[in-house]
């Protein structure tokens, strides 16, 4: 303890090591806080505890061998990461995807987005000290996991998408399960609003807490719901529509102030919008193939590069692949949204209380292994 006591001309300041083992630093994040009483003077996030070298692995593997890795970067939105990676490789190799597969991918991705947001919703309330919403959210999330389990055979790291399609076709049971889930959620949204959104304690904990101004967000490259909470309707699904997202009618929820409450509301409404997308996709799900027949086992895309962005649950995510014509990429870079979303906390945390710091950390929805890669 003693060596941590710092006296830098200001005897009031002392440091507190928040993490790497702390109940509220989801994943292994460590933040060095300089505190004055309970007020934070300086915050220095230390990351890299979960660095596994995915980018290096990507360079050493064939494209399809890297596919399972992608869902392990952000384990909460594995389907979205799979989806983005196959998009990138398909673009690089010029593979066409059947319509049905596109729809199935969208449905699966949106389900995964909801499950990721639900988990965030639960753990955020857990950070704020409300334990029960966490279990309710997990109950709902379990339904999604069951649905995705039924089509992909896995509950977290799906590896469901394939270059040129998806690995398994969906059946009537899947459609029924998904519809039942959508129906169930309608009642749950009301419950969540009564239990959390309207709750006076919750509102006081989050309103005007951790304000990320639009300028700050731009400076740090904050994307996703955190950016939309500042009032910008920037969503890759809209700005660079991939797959069939341009065919659906959905809103991009935005906030106004960029505080924790706005971020909460944006994510909450995003889940409802995802439900809308799924509903429409199920409505128009075409019959047909789920896999392009002529995809070679050993895929060797032509020389060149591709930068494919997609909207993961946490924001703009992108794969930057450089091909030298061999079966594996020459360079495989992943732009992860949490990187900027955590980076911005350097400027947001100072001046807040420790209790607020937890509320802010939770509200930006970080997945640390995604940053560490």
């Amino acid at each position: 303890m003693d060596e941590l006591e710092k006296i830098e001309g200001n005897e009031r300041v002392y440091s507190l090591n928040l993490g790497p083992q702390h109940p509220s630093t989801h994943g292994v994040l460590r933040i060095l806080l300089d505190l004055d009483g309970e007020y934070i003077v300086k915050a220095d996030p230390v990351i890299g505890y979960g660095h596994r070298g995915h980018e290096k692995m990507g360079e050493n593997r064939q494209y399809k061998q890297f596919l399972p890795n992608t869902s392990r970067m952000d384990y909460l939105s594995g389907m979205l990461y799979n989806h983005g990676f196959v998009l990138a490789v398909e673009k690089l190799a010029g593979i066409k995807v059947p319509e049905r597969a596109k729809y199935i991918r969208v449905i699966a991705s949106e389900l995964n987005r909801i499950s990721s947001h639900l988990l965030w919703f639960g753990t955020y309330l857990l950070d704020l000290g409300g334990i029960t919403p966490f279990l309710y959210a997990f109950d709902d999330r379990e339904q999604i996991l069951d649905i995705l389990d039924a089509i992909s055979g896995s509950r977290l790291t799906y590896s469901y998408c394939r270059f040129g399609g998806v690995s398994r076709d969906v059946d009537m049971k899947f459609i029924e399960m998904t519809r039942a889930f959508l129906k169930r959620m309608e009642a749950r949204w009301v419950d969540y609003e009564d239990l959390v959104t309207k709750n006076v304690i919750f509102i006081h904990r989050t309103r005007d807490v951790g304000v990320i101004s639009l300028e700050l967000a731009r400076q740090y490259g904050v994307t996703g719901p955190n950016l939309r909470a500042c009032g910008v309707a920037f969503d890759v699904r809209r700005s660079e529509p991939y797959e069939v997202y341009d065919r659906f009618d959905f809103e991009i929820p935005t906030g106004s102030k960029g505080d924790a409450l706005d971020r909460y509301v944006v994510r909450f409404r995003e889940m409802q919008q995802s439900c809308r997308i799924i509903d429409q996709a199920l409505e128009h799900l075409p019959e047909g193939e789920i896999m392009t027949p002529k995809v070679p086992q050993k895929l060797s895309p032509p020389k060149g590069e591709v930068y494919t962005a997609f909207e993961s649950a946490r924001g703009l995510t992108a794969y930057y692949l450089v091909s030298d014509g061999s079966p594996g990429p020459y360079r495989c870079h992943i732009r992860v949204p949490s990187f900027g979303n955590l980076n911005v906390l350097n400027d947001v945390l100072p001046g807040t209380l420790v209790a607020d710091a937890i509320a802010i950390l939770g509200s930006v929805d970080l997945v640390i292994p995604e940053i560490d890669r």
Partner: protein
Amino acid sequence: MKINDIEARMHSKFPESPLNRDDTGGTGVQWSIAVPISGIRDAATEFDAAGFFLESITALDFEDTFELVYHFNCYEPGSRASVRMLCGHDEVPPSICDIFRGAVWLEREVHDFFGIKFSGNADMRPLLLPEDADYHPLRKTFGKVGAYHKREVIYG
């Protein structure tokens, strides 16, 4: 469209630099411009003034040189542009962390993985690697490597 404005400005700012438009959308960027190593700060300032945000900084390791790739984007549909610059294996590019604050970490990450030092970035501690790391894993001289090409092998 901001992306067209900035394209014109980049043209006037770097008349000699080749600007590759990608009209088919095959690479995911609207256009990319190759700037000299000294020009990155000017380019970043332009993008900053135009209201763009810095999406990512990454590097490519070739046998003859590093290539740094900066991706900029703004909150308008389809507005991604990339700025590329060649940087010799022992050259020190200027940092843009006073223009985009988020660049501090991105440059630290590039430094981690490739050992490229940025002049002007005061905080060059390892970000993702251990504090005492003296290796740069994404260099093609480190660990298992598939291939090590010269730049022209891929980009002609």
